[in-house]
């Protein structure tokens, strides 16, 4: 059973629908018991960094997530803001992130030729094992991006103008994707299928 962690932010229904479409069950919940009993977790998220951390704290989810993810090493996928919250900090806010991944979140620079937010379909590339099809693309909507300290944590990169950023990272049981698989039709389904089947190992 996959638990989509409900901390008040993100396209939870869409993620659930897509997981159902690829033939698995998912439950949307903020209940500690459900999170503990699930086999995999998804941390969704749309919105601002500090709001995300505030919600996680307010709902008392930090501890149970730490136990399940860090101590019990339960597979977890962070999506968009969910991915960013897993890092140490973000230029978008003043609060500390969960700090599970050695990375920080940076803002796209303010430039004439660079439209921010990065909004639209874009390609991902890299990936040691060929889990995704060759020209896999996803829908991105973000003004901030993840900057990993270790190259070995980066699974896929994406190029926006001349800025190359991490589109997918993987550190053991912890994965993060900057784009929205639930809004990336066939590519999103391909990605989620890969995550659920642990093909990205």
């Amino acid at each position, binding site marked *: 059973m996959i638990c989509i962690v409900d901390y008040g932010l993100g*396209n939870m*229904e*869409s993620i659930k*629908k*897509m997981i159902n*479409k690829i033939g698995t069950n998912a439950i949307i919940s903020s209940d500690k018991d459900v999170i503990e009993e699930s086999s995999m977790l998804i941390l969704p998220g*749309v*919105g*601002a960094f500090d709001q995300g951390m505030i919600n996680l704290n307010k709902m008392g989810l930090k501890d149970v997530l730490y136990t399940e993810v860090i101590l019990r090493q339960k597979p977890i996928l962070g999506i968009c803001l969910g991915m960013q919250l897993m890092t140490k900090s973000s230029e978008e806010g003043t609060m500390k992130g969960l700090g599970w991944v050695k990375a920080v979140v940076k803002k796209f620079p*303010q430039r*004439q030729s660079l*439209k*921010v*937010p*990065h*909004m*639209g*379909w*874009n*390609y991902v590339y890299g990936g040691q094992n060929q889990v995704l099809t060759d020209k896999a*693309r996803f*829908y*991105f*909507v*973000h*003004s901030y991006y993840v900057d990993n300290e270790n190259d070995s944590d980066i699974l896929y990169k994406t190029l*926006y*103008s001349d800025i190359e950023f991490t589109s997918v990272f993987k550190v053991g049981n912890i994965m993060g994707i900057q784009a*929205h698989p*639930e*809004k*990336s*039709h*066939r590519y*999103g*389904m391909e990605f989620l299928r890969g995550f659920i089947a642990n093909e990205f190992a």
Partner: protein
Amino acid sequence: MSLPRIIPTLLLSNYGLVKTVNYKSPNYLGDPVNAVKIFNDKNADEIILLDIQSSVNGTEPNYSLIKKIAGEAFMPFTYGGGIRSVEMAKRILASGAEKVSLNTINYDSPRILTELSKEVGSQSVVGAFDVRKDWFGRKKVYNKNRKEAKAYEPLDYARILVDRGAGELFITDVDREGTYKGYDIEFFATIAEKIDVPVVCNGGCNNRQNIKEVFQKTEVSGCAVGSLFLYSGPHKAFLLSYWTYE
């Protein structure tokens, strides 16, 4: 640059799908959820749903319809039409829309867009406005129900919306809407060139070549397409079509 976007734009009136010409004389087409499923299967980049009645009637959006549509859509989806409070917009986003589009409310209460942008992030907030030629053939900002709109020059107004916090602009050329006359490339080029957020043009798309031209000659980020995808043939029979991604 990000890949250019082609965005089927569906108009709702009293919860049914309609199509208009110059935003007048709506022609009823059917169930919006079915339309979304079809665009799903054809892997459409994203879709826009505009309720053209809400603003006039002052009604609430049909949140359960929005939920249904968002649940069916495996691509991003923007909802607009009669949004007049931060709470309403947030509820629409919570119902599953990726972005909300604010148009008429920007003339009445400018701060709503700003507040909303602060709360949910500018990437989820689209500033929308219509343009129409005045008696002298100059394009001015236009709103069917707000006469004060025409005091604005389109480029100035575009900047105003961006300054207020719009993460994207959706501009409709009412003169061309539903007409198949082709997008006004010159006009949209001027706007997109000077604006730092993504600009989506709407109104007049007549063929694939027209869209290609927009992306070649302007910095427009996306083309909203209405009639071309919904109709086909001389009798305007209802037919949905989409092109495989170029």
